[in-house]
């Protein structure tokens, strides 16, 4: 969405070359510098051509194709660029499906190129053939199959345009082996529009007027920020809107870091394990201003009760999200980078000091009953919250935080604190365990000047633990904080709260993570006692290369606050 407007039509003519070379030339024209991939039979011609492009295209050899996609997601999320993956047909391709589904749910721009059997073999159940265009229809924004070398440049131009424009998403280009080997004159034309596709709908000025009127009249408004602000590079536009409107602002999980945690109007995270104020006061609000967010059920709880006393303004780039979950009284379609300033211009300067002070009262309650006990627990074992807090202090709240999925994800989101945008990479919509480690690899490559810290549990780490080999081979200095409770903690928490503490298959008997770390060339330290924690974190931070810090945490800690699934968010529980 950030580059479609300034894209100009550009034609590059060149000599005759193979489809494989044409693919790599297309990457270069689209500004790609990093590929995440894994070779195999049906993509060998491309890898052969890549051998001559090693000086221009960095290829990261992962250990499993799912890792390639998650790494590309991490890269895309921190850099705002399109993540690119290259894998073979059949099993190589099917291994990427989880990553594609994750990227579609979380609107991450990706281009995945898959090899395919020769076009004469299509449909014959050839070796390593799958109908990948069919399989990925439900998990891509767009996909296509290319059967001739001369079609490759146009397919790639469309793939990059679709992936990055409008609401971003993953795109698959499936290229048959004969198309990779065939040759054609190379002719590349960047795409700036597609007749059947409206990436950014135009806002209706009447709706903007109506929205401005509601904002001016509201007595108890709340802005709710989602990842749309980050994807639209609209942080400054949001700040201007907040300053003029004076409204308090809360964030979804994926919107975190778009507004600094210590911003005066920031009142916390929405949703199931969000902060107390924005949840408990949901029914007190008379206006909710949703900005680039999609009312995920983890945010709304019971949709029937969500904002039941409020009018709702929905600023959204994807018309299919309008009214999908929550009825919008005033839908404003468009890119928030364009619509926010138009709204700011129309509203009057206001302050909502007394209303915001009410959120601070909620903060004090949460501080007393949830945060202080979480960060300063009385028992002998280290708690996840205090581990996150110790790391956050060591990094002065300024690092790219990558998480896996589960309790550590929620503790990291709640307690790290963020200073600048694009500082949290997490799997929100799909909730993919195993996302964290490969995403951290991609994040470090996408933001080489920033520290990248991964919080991961013992369950999630073992889902993609083979990517430690990628870290070893490609020397990627990510810092891994393993919060080990030898449980699938979030499921165990649900079993404790809702299934009568019947811990059905959630206890893990784990391997020696120290031996695994050392076998993969990572520096390693294990901490069990509180007094060692700060020192160990400092050592991890100071380490030049990758580091695995295992923190043995309390085995049966719960994440609070919590909105029980499907309950109104105002029924949030503090303990």
């Amino acid at each position, binding site marked *: 969405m950030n580059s479609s407007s300034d894209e100009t039509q550009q034609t590059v003519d060149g000599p005759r070359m193979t489809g494989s070379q044409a693919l790599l030339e297309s990457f270069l024209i689209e500004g790609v510098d990093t590929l995440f991939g894994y070779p195999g039979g049906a993509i060998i011609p491309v890898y052969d051509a890549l051998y001559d492009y090693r000086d221009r295209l960095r290829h990261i050899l992962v250990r499993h194709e799912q890792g390639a996609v998650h790494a590309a997601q991490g890269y895309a999320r921190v850099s705002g660029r399109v993540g690119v993956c290259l894998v073979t047909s059949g099993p190589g391709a099917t291994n990427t499906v989880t990553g594609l589904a994750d990227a579609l749910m979380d609107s991450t721009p990706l281009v995945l190129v898959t090899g395919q059997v020769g076009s004469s073999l299509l449909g014959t159940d050839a070796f390593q053939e799958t109908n990948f265009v069919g399989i990925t229809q439900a998990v891509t924004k767009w996909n296509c199959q290319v059967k001739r070398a001369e079609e490759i440049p146009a397919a790639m131009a469309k793939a990059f345009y679709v992936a990055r424009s409008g609401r971003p998403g993953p795109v698959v280009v499936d290229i048959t082996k004969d198309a990779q080997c065939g040759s054609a004159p190379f002719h590349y034309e960047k795409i700036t529009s597609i007749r059947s596709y409206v990436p950014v709908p135009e806002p209706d000025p009447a709706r903007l007027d109506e929205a401005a009127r509601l904002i001016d009249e509201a007595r108890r408004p709340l802005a709710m920020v989602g990842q749309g602000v980050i994807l639209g590079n609209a942080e400054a536009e949001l700040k201007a809107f907040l300053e003029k409107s004076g409204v308090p602002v809360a964030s979804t999980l994926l919107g975190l870091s778009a507004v600094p945690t210590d911003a005066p109007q920031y009142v916390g995270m929405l949703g199931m394990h969000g902060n107390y104020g924005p949840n408990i006061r949901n029914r007190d609000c008379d206006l909710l201003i949703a900005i680039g967010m999609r009312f995920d059920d983890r945010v709304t709880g019971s949709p029937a009760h969500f904002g039941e006393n409020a009018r709702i303004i929905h600023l959204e780039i*994807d018309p299919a999200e309008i009214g999908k979950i929550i009825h919008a009284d005033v839908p404003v379609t468009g890119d928030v980078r364009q619509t926010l300033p138009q709204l700011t211009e129309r509203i009057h300067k206001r302050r909502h000091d007394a209303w915001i002070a009410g959120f601070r009262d909620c903060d004090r309650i949460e501080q007393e009953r949830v945060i202080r006990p979480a960060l300063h627990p009385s028992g002998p074992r280290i708690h996840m919250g205090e581990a996150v807090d110790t790391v956050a202090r060591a990094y002065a709240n300024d690092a790219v935080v990558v998480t896996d999925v589960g309790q550590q994800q929620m503790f990291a989101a709640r307690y790290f604190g963020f200073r600048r945008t694009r500082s949290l990479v997490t799997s929100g919509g799909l909730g993919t365990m195993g996302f964290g480690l490969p995403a951290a690899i991609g994040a470090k490559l996408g933001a080489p000047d920033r520290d990248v810290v991964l919080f991961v549990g013992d369950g999630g780490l073992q889902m993609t633990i083979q990517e430690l080999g990628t870290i070893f081979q490609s020397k990627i200095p990510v810092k891994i904080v393993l919060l080990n409770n030898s449980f699938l903690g979030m499921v165990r928490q649900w079993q404790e709260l809702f299934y009568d503490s019947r811990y059905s298959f959630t206890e893990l008997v784990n391997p020696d993570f120290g031996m695994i770390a050392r076998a993969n060339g990572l520096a390693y330290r294990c901490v069990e006692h509180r007094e060692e924690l700060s020192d160990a974190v400092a050592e991890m931070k100071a380490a030049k290369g990758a580091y695995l810090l295992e923190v043995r945490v309390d085995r049966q800690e719960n994440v609070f606050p919590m909105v029980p699934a499907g309950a109104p968010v105002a029924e949030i529980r503090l303990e």
Partner: protein
Amino acid sequence: METEQEYIITVFSENKVGLLSQITTVFTCRNVNIESLTTSESALQGIHKFTIVVRTTPETVQKVVRQIEKKIDVLKTFVYTPEEVVQQEIALYKVTRSNSVEQLVRRHNVRILEIDTDYIVVEKTGHKEETQQLFRLLQPYGVQQFVRSGTVAVIKSRRELLNEYLEELEKLRRESEAAASETEKSN
């Protein structure tokens, strides 16, 4: 709970392989049964038209339409109630020949397509109820084969919505190109 009613959805798209299944998946995901579906090239060359008849609630039909329109290769989607369109289906009947059958089909305003020594093939166009009624009447005489098409429909409104939409797109495209060349000049 909103009540279900019949809707005729028309989808205009680029002619792309696999698009039919992308469109039908949207209905599957929301557990909406497709009553009938026809597809062919539209009056505009290169643009495909799907006519889909469903029974569902007003709210669901709007959500389904927005999901369909989200597909990159879909140009535009319109929803109509039966009152807003003129719709027709075509049915073919292969019936064992007899005097009473011939009298019956003459009374029902059908076209006779083929007469063989032991069967006749007749065609009737109309609404589903009409083609179904003839099927019931013919059944006692022995219907060897019966087939009915999906619904095709034209809208009653004088406005050609797709053409208007395409003109609008063309206008926007020209404007943005003009703006782009302006920017280039000023640079």
